[in-house]
């Protein structure tokens, strides 16, 4: 029973993969059968999350689990379910639905293992497992050239970042003689230049995955080219998992190098906030726009982590949850409109409010949450991040981040203005929403409104750290 609980998320994912494979290899069925099967399997993940995750490790410390990690995995599983629900319209038009679910859940399994990794070997393998299916998924708008371009960019950039990561890993292994996190943490010292180089390399690898400036160049193109559900997955679930393992790496493995790590964090935070916000100002395509906004959001997480306290970790984990609801809400609207009409630029969404009131309000609420305006959860998320960052009295950095919130509000308002205040753009008719879509929108709105004002979510996280 203990093993079952330890591996509950991973087992559920494996089971889902097996079921999907069997269903795919059996006789061909209608698309809607596969869609419902997919929802059911994802629901299983959420159901599994209800059981407690015990503290423990397996396979000689390769795999570790704890209540906190279990909670993080539950966030990811829930996020994927939300994304699948929002993708309803896109899935119904798609010819390879079981493959979509298969690849998504495989990648999710990779992320589960990534979060739970207790050694660099596991970390590296899980990361690859998480990334490769996504690269394939990026190409799943099979008739759009941009989609295959996105896949190519994704695979090349992840290969590049993997190379950097493995170089860093090899340096660490060479100098400490171990791949296990606790051993490495024990043997690291701030004075050894080899360790500092290893930290820089690993940091760069993470920076690639998190699209931290200056390693963000792939983000906008991949986000724009990929199908919207895949973009959502990349920006919410995948990025969330990387933030989680990044916290572990920073605060557990590289704890002895903390002062140098903080320097890296501060520099990249400033760069990320600045570049992300400046580039978001001028974007026309909504997916590109959300790509740069998500880069800027990571900047805020870096600000918090540079505070270097355990409040920073709880603020970051909480922010990932809030960001999940907000970003899924925003992408859901973009995805629904894009799947129904093929339109995904700000200009084409002008006057959406006149034809689709519900979608407009959801998008506006999500964007205000991303901008950090109360009563949305985004306000609390941002506030706690800045609060965690202020722990070490780096007020200049906090002031810089706070000013960036003003810039961010400027470009989020651009979209809100287009939707609400401008005359309608022809061609976007009133859309009928399916039950799945309604459910997804309702869940993200509920998340945006409740997870902030009701403090339970944050307290649950903080209690585990």
């Amino acid at each position, binding site marked *: 029973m203990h093993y079952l609980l330890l591996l509950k998320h991973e087992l559920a994912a494996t089971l889902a993969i097996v079921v999907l494979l069997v269903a795919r290899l059996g006789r061909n069925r209608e698309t809607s059968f596969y869609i419902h099967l997919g929802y059911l399997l994802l629901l299983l993940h959420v159901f599994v999350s209800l059981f407690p995750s015990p503290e423990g490790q397996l396979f000689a410390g390769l795999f570790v689990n704890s209540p906190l990690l279990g909670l993080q995995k539950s966030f990811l599983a829930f996020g994927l379910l939300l994304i699948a629900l929002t993708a309803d319209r896109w899935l119904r038009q798609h010819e390879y639905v079981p493959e979509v679910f298969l690849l998504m859940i495989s990648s999710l399994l990779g992320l589960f293992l990534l979060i739970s990794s207790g050694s660099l070997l596991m970390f590296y393998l899980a990361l690859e497992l998480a990334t490769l299916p996504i690269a394939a998924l990026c190409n799943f708008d099979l008739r759009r050239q941009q989609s295959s371009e996105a896949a190519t960019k994704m695979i090349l950039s992840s290969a590049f970042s993997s190379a950097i990561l493995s170089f860093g890993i090899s340096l660490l292994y060479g100098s400490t003689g171990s791949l296990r996190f606790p051993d490495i943490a024990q043997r690291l010292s701030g004075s050894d230049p080899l360790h500092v180089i290893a930290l820089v390399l690993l940091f760069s690898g993470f920076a690639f995955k998190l699209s931290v400036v200056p390693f963000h160049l792939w983000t906008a193109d991949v986000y724009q080219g990929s199908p919207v559900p895949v973009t959502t997955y990349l920006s919410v679930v995948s990025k969330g998992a990387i933030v989680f393992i990044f916290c572990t790496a920073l605060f557990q493995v590289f704890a002895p190098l903390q002062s140098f790590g903080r320097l890296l964090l501060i520099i990249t935070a400033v760069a990320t906030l600045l570049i992300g916000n400046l580039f978001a100002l001028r974007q026309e395509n909504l997916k590109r726009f959300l790509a740069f906004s998500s880069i800027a959001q990571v900047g805020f997480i870096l600000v918090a982590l540079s505070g270097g306290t355990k409040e920073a970790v709880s603020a970051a984990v909480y922010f990932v949850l809030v960001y999940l609801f907000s970003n899924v809400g925003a992408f859901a609207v973009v995805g629904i409109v894009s799947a129904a009409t093929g339109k995904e630029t700000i200009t084409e969404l002008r006057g959406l409010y006149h034809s689709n009131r519900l979608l407009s309000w959801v998008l506006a609420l999500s964007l205000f949450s991303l901008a950090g305006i109360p009563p949305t959860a985004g306000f609390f998320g941002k506030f706690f991040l800045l609060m965690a960052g202020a722990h070490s009295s780096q007020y200049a950095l906090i002031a810089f981040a706070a000013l960036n*919130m003003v810039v961010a509000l400027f470009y989020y308002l651009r979209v809100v*203005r287009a939707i609400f*205040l401008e005359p309608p753009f022809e061609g976007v008719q009133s859309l009928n929403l399916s039950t799945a879509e309604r459910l997804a929108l309702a869940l993200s709105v509920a998340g945006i409104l409740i997870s902030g004002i009701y*403090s339970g979510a944050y307290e649950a996280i903080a209690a585990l750290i």
Partner: protein
Amino acid sequence: MNLNLLIWVPLLTTAVVVLWGKGQRAAMLATVGSVVQLGLALLLYLAYTAERSIHANVPFLFEYRAVWYKPLNITYHLGVDGISVAMVLLTAFVVLAGVLMSWNITHQPREFHALLTLLGAGAYGVFLSVDTFTLFFFLELAVIPKYLLIGIWGSGQKEYCARKLVLMLMLGSALVLVGLLGVFFSAGHTFSLSAVSATGVPLKLQQWLFPLLFLGFGIFTAIFPFHTWVPDGHSAAPTAGSMFLAGISMKLGGYGCLRTVTHLMPEAAVQYAPLIIILGCIAIVYGSLATMMQTDLKYLNAYSSISHCGFVVLGIGLLTQTARNGAVLQMVSHGLMTALFFAVIGLIYERTHTRTIRDMGGLIQVMPFVMTVLFMAGMCSLGLPGLSGFVAEVTVFVGGWEREELLPRVAVVLACSSIVLTAVYIVRAIGQVAMGPLLGRVDQVPVGWAERLAVLLLLSGILLMGLWPEWLMQLVDMPAPALETHLSRIEN
């Protein structure tokens, strides 16, 4: 009395309007909600005066405290002193008047009234908070309603103006945020006002936290040179939006300055007082000079608001108890007066379809009621005894004269001189609009009962305060120990 009622009723009204406010029913539901709010506010006044006579030495009454985010030591903490009660009363008056003025909104009334009530809820929240996090939360709550109200229902360059207003206020909030975090970490990891003022903020930190917070809140109250959002925002907003913005939202800044900035950092307040006095004087004089150049009625009132809010800043900067009372009185007086002004401008615009002063004339022949009210509002603005403006401004002057240094005295003289300037632009504008031969085409639309009620409500507030200021003076002046220690700290 449970202060939560004053937060829940507006929020509940918003929810009810969203759920059931189809068509014209939205205005009705919103009105019912605002009447309840006004009732609660009056009840609060009565309960407060009764309770205060028993507990004279408690800083805040009717405190409600609930742990919000335990790991971060964040609490949801409400409480009132005399200043808050005065501001709550003002809010309730303006909210009801604003809602009554909006019965004729035909474009998406449901959304309009929901956003309007939400804006009111934010203001109540700020005035009732005695915890800086709670205060900041409610301060920011108003961002979405402000933007959408101006952007959707506004006129003229509404998009530009809405964006400018929201971004400048957000800049203020960003400064406030950094300042509050600074206070949090320097004064024992707490957001609670009483806890922070008991510990005190280290002097070295006050040096830079004070200007940060003061400027942040100052932007809300249109401190020079961050006043530019006022004319644009107020002129583009719909009538009720302008009433709310000028009547309530601008007061959030002054209130924030009093409640958090000078209260938590009295030492720095002494140090920066000359600067505040100078900024206040610039706002007063520059504001009224700029008003003289305006040709649009809404711009006229918006610039005169900058001038009048300068008195609030001046009153805070003078640092005496009387001047502080004057600042609070000015907030209440200006809130009522400017809301009345905007309501009247809305009524005029509906009939003349222009706001340009030069294109109007002789309107008293066709709309005697509206013009009489305009006259009253104008007289209040230039400080005619018997109306609220006089009471407030004189209190500031007297408070300023209590200080014997040169700067406060010069400031008072300068501020007094602005009354002449005010008279110039008010008399000139009213003369052009009301007197003389009838100019232009004027629609003969009777003033509806809701609008009459709104105007009379605000007018009665102005008269009540002008003819019998004693009750408000007493309310504001009631010995609040927190302020006494603040003042004694200054003297030492």
